[in-house]
């Protein structure tokens, strides 16, 4: 690991990686080489799926929030400590259609895929966070409009309130979203009702990240699909 900095409630890690660079929405499986295990419940054991935040020039970045033994250990790493890295994995976002404005909707640790999307193709960001400490993550995107649950920064309420407003406006838009399951479910329902195309980067518990275990499935109109292999990005309309 070559870099580490705190960003509000999050930690940004920078890791040396010679492999091909990740595309927006792709992820890696991460584990610390030393001290992986022995945390709460004797975990972590498996690697943790973490989205790429930036990639290139032999480096890849990650945004982490300590929510349990795996992310906790990754957040505690110091520069110079070694990581296991498998990736880049999964199918990320495709470039947006030229005739529509891309709206990037997300929150929490869901913002890395959107940051990479904006860097590659632009797009207007609407981001939601719990509070001001978490909203510091918004600095990873350009000109983001914010919502916070506690109203300390930006709109008091959900980011999906901002999306609703945009969908009511007349413009031709398409939506790219990544965030907690409840947020994505609302994005799916809103865009479907408005007839607006949307792509969602999903999360699922993962054991392998490369299609080996069939553990990470999501229900689609075409049966269960592996989030790590057929996703994590799915078009909202295919989800059941």
């Amino acid at each position, binding site marked *: 690991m070559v870099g580490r900095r705190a960003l509000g409630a999050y930690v940004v890690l920078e890791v040396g990686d010679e492999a091909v660079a990740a595309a927006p929405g792709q992820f890696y499986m991460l*584990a610390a080489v030393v001290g992986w*295990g022995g945390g709460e*419940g*004797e*975990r*972590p*054991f*498996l*690697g943790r799926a973490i989205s790429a935040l930036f990639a290139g020039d032999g480096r890849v970045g990650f945004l982490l929030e300590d929510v349990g033994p795996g992310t906790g250990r990754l957040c505690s790493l110091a520069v110079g400590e070694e990581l*296991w890295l*498998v990736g880049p*994995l999964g199918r990320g976002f495709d470039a947006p259609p030229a005739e529509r404005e891309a709206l990037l909707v997300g929150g929490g640790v869901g913002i890395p895929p959107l940051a990479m999307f904006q860097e590659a193709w632009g797009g207007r960001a609407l981001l939601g966070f719990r509070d001001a400490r978490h909203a510091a993550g918004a600095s990873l995107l350009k000109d983001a409009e914010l919502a916070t649950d506690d109203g300390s920064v930006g709109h008091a309420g959900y980011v999906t309130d901002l999306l609703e407003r945009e969908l009511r406006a007349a413009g031709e838009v398409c939506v790219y979203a990544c965030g907690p399951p409840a947020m994505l479910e609302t994005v799916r329902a809103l865009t479907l009702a408005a007839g607006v195309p949307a792509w969602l980067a999903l999360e*699922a*518990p*993962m*054991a*392998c990240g*490369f*299609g*080996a*275990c*069939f*553990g*990470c*499935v*999501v*229900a689609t109109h075409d*049966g*269960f699909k*592996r989030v790590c*292999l057929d996703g994590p990005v799915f078009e909202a309309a295919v989800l059941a």
Partner: protein
Amino acid sequence: MTAFCGIELAHPVINASGCFDALAAREVFGDSLIERFPFAAYVSKTVTLGPRAGNPPPRLWEAAGGLINSIGLPNPGIDAYLETHLPAYAALGVPIITNVMGSTVEQFGELVERVALRDEVAAIELNVSCPNVATGLDIGADPHELERLVTALRPLSAKPLIVKLTPNAADVAACAAAAESGGADSVSLINTLRAMALAPGATAPWLGGGTGGLSGPAIRSIALAQVASVAASVAIPVIGMGGVASGADAAALLDVGATLVAVGTETFRDPAAGRRIANELAQRFAENAA
């Protein structure tokens, strides 16, 4: 080289069924995976007569030193397996072992007969960790039922028949002996141990399937005891598995009588685990010989 039921293998490490999708891995890691295929043989995920969607999510729970899964044997069914999957596996350049499961003797019979017709298949593994729909008992947990099943299947194929034993039985060695008397060429063990987890802060099960199977380092010492006991009770070759993560773990199973070692859960953490473990084993053999 390692000899197993008349099949020549480059080394004694193969994959555990359901823990490595070679076609998905090829898609993710590219053709270099085929050039340096991590296992000496490729064991398919369990195939059933009809297609199965598998259990509803969540399907995974991380336990102390392991994993509880309730995947529920999703597979495309035997028709699609034989038509599209098997020809693609044949390009892997290693012997193919097809793992099948039925819930009656007749279903197993049809599966074995159809797989037996295919030259790409080097051996057939029978997953008997399933309830008999007629009796409700696990076919593989009852020595009498198991012997009856293997006896019925034996004449249907000249290919080696491997019986994958369930560890959820009162006397696994007796089941292994029953498989041998029925005409099995080999037994493999251990499958996952029945296990359960409750959702955090709740009283309901976490897994979509209610219960699941425990694998990984958490079951390593149970696997060693069961493999030792089975290897001491039968004359046919034994494939040992359960929590193997290193050459030392693999060597322990070989030391108590296994001929081959299979790697499952460790592959999730390290896609190249098969090759790494085989290299570590070879190094141990070289050091012991010196």
